[in-house]
C-alpha cells in the first residue's frame, strides 16, 4: 500500500493510503476530540467534534471521514476550531437533560471528558429541557433519552458487529430519538439478542446496565474493536 506524507500542525506525518486524518493523527499521538467515532465500526462524521482545517479548503473537514492526501497541510488546534468544538459540546449539553452529579456514567463519560477537554466552564445557550422518556423494560439494560447525544454508536455496533439492527433513529431534528425495532419498548423488541454491545459502545449514561447507580457505569469501549479484530483474524 502506498504511503502518503503530509503535515499535521507543522509535524511531518507518514500514513498509509486510504487512512483518515484521524487515524493518522492518533498513530502519531496527536489528539483530535471525537464523540460519535468508535473503533471497530464505520465512521459517520455526525458529531463534528473532529473538524480540522486543511490549507486550501474553505470548509472545515471531519477528520474521521477525510482520507489523507499527499502533501496536505492539516491544523487540528486553532482558535477557530477550539471555539467551534466548545460550542458543539455546549449545544449537546443544552439539547437534552444532562445532570452529571447523579448520572450512572459520572466519572466514566466521554461527553463529560469532552466538556473538560474543551474548557466548558458554563453553557452559553439556554437549556432546552425537553421531556424525554426512560425505558427500562429490557430485563438487563435501560435507555435514558435525557442523556442520549444521538451519536448512533449503538445503531452502528448493533448493525455492523452484532448483525441485528435492533437500534435505529426515528424522528427529525429535536424530536430525533434512537429506537428499538419499530419504536417498541426495548423489552418488547424481539430482534434484540441482549448481547450488550450497545451498552459497551454508548459514550454517555444513555444506555446503561439496569440497576446501575450513580457513577457505576464503567465500560470498556475498546472491547468492540477487540471483537472485530478477533473475528477478522479467525475468518
Amino acid at each position, binding site marked *: 500500500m502506498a504511503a502518503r506524507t503530509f503535515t499535521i500542525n507543522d509535524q511531518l506525518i507518514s500514513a498509509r493510503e486510504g487512512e483518515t486524518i484521524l487515524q493518522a493523527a492518533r498513530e502519531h499521538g496527536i489528539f483530535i476530540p471525537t464523540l460519535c467515532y468508535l473503533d471497530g465500526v464505520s465512521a459517520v462524521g455526525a458529531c463534528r467534534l473532529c473538524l480540522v482545517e486543511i490549507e486550501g479548503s474553505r470548509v472545515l473537514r471531519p477528520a474521521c471521514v477525510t482520507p489523507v492526501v499527499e502533501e496536505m497541510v492539516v491544523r487540528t488546534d486553532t482558535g477557530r476550531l477550539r471555539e467551534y468544538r466548545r460550542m458543539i459540546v455546549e449545544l449537546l449539553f443544552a439539547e437534552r437533560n444532562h445532570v452529571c452529579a*447523579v448520572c450512572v456514567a459520572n466519572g466514566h463519560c466521554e461527553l463529560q471528558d469532552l466538556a473538560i477537554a474543551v474548557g466548558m466552564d458554563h453553557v452559553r445557550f439556554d437549556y432546552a429541557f425537553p421531556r424525554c422518556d*426512560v425505558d427500562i423494560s429490557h430485563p438487563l439494560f435501560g435507555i435514558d433519552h435525557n442523556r442520549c447525544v444521538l451519536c448512533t454508536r449503538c445503531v452502528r455496533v448493533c448493525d455492523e458487529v452484532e448483525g441485528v439492527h435492533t437500534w435505529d433513529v426515528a424522528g427529525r431534528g429535536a424530536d430525533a430519538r434512537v429506537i428499538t425495532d419499530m419504536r417498541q419498548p426495548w423489552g418488547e423488541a424481539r430482534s434484540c439478542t441482549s448481547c450488550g454491545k450497545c451498552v459497551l459502545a454508548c459514550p454517555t449514561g444513555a444506555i446503561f446496565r*439496569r440497576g446501575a*447507580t450513580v*457513577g457505576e457505569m464503567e465500560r470498556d469501549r475498546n472491547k468492540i474493536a477487540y471483537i472485530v479484530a478477533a473475528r477478522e483474524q479467525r475468518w
Partner: protein
Amino acid sequence: MTRQILIDPVTRIEGHAKISIHLDDNGEVQEARFHVTEFRGFERFCEGRPFWEMPGITARICGICPVSHLLASAKAGDALLAVTIPPAAEKLRRLMNLGQIVQSHALSFFHLSAPDLLLGFDSDPAQRNIFGLMAADPTLARAGIRLRQFGQDIIAMLGGSKIHPAWAVPGGVRSAPTAAQRAEIAQRLPEARATVLDALRRFKALLDTHRDEVATFGDFPSLFLGLVGPNGEWEHYDGHLRVVDSGGAIVVDQVKPSRYRDIIAEAVEPWSYLKMPYYRARGYPAGMYRVGPLARLNICTRIGTLLADAELGEMRQRAGGIATSSFYYHYARLVEILAALERISLLLDDPDLDSPRLRAEAGVNQFEGIGVSEAPRGTLFHHYTVDAHGLIQSVNLIIATGHNNLAMNRTIAQIARRYVKGDRISEGALNRVEAGIRAYDPCLSCSTHAAGMMPLVITLVAADGTVLDEVRR
C-alpha cells in the same frame, strides 16, 4: 389594632426562612409564624426516574445530612426489591448514619448554637458566631470542629466522599472499608469522646444559669415521635414508630414504619412552603408532636450503651422525667453524640464487616416502598411507588424539620411573649426568637425538598399591615 413583627431571614440555621410576630391591640404577642420560603420540587421531578437512582438524587436535597436521605431512599429501594439486605450492609449503613449524627449534631451545637450558649444571648452580635467562639475559647472551638470532622471522615471512609456519597443503594451498599481504615477511625474515638463529655459538662452548668430560657424556649406539652427498637431502646436506623406524650405515657407503639399514614396526617398553611404534619388521632393542630434528638431520648426506654445511658438518666432527673422544653434539644444532641461514639466503637470491631457480601440482588417485587430512618433532626420518610419496570410513579418525602413545624411555631410565640415588648425588637429578643428555632436545628433546604446561607430579618407589622419595625442582619 393588631401589629406584626417580621424576622427575615432567620440566621444560623440551614436554609431560608423568616419569622413574623403578630401583636394585638394592646401590643401583646398574639401569635408568631415561622415561614419557610424555599421551594424545591424533588417530589415532582423525580417522577419517571429508575428507583435505583433515587438515593443518589435525593441525597442532593441536603449538603448537611445527605446520608439521611441516602439511607431512607436506599431502604425504600430495599422495600421495592423486597429483600433483606446482607448483615454487613446493614451494619455499614448504621455506621455511616452514626457518623452523620456525630457530624450534624456537632455542627448544630458547636458551630451554630454554642455562640449563643457560651458567649451569651445578649453578647455582641458581631462576635456571636463561630469566629467569636474561636477567639474566646480556641480549645473548645477546635475540639468542636474536629468532632464534626471525625463524623465526616467516617462518612468519607465508607462512601468515598464527605458530602453526597452515592454509596448506599437499593439492596445494600457498594463497598466496605478496609481493616486499616477502621483502625484509623477507632484510634480517634477517645478524643471525640473527651470533646463531647466536656461539652456536656459545660451545658449542664448552663441549665442552672439559663432557667428563663429553659422555661420559655418551647416548654409546653406535646407528643414525641420516633423509632425505637423491639424493646423500646434508642434506635437510629430501623425499628418501629413510637409516640409518647409529655407525661411519659406511650400513646402508640411498635407501629410498622410502612404504616406511618395511619398515625401521621399533613396540613398545609398558605404562609409557608413547609407542611404541618400532626398526629392523626388528635387532629390538627392539637396533634402537634416533636421529633429529633429530644424526642428520641424521650421515647426510648434506654440507649443501650454505658456512658450514654448514665447521661440519659441524669438528663431525665434534671428534667423531672420527660423533657418538655426544647432548650433540652441541645442536651439531647450531646447525649446522642456520646451514644453514637459508643456504638461506632462497637461496630468498628464487628467481624461481620469483613463479609464480601454487601448487596442483595433482585428485581422489582413490590410497587410501593417506604424507607424510614432517623435523620439527625428526626424521623425521615421516603415513600415511592414504581411501575412494573421500576420507574418512579410518585414520591412523598416527610422530612424531620417538617414534623417539628407546629412545635417551632409554638416555640417562637412563647419566646416572643416573654421577650418582645411594645413595637420595637431589641437585639437580645431578636436573637432569642432565632435561638428558639435553632434549638430544633431545622434544615429548611431538606424540609422543602436551597442552597445558600441564611440571613435574618424580623419585621414588626401593625394590625393594618404597616411595618412598625424591621431588623435585618
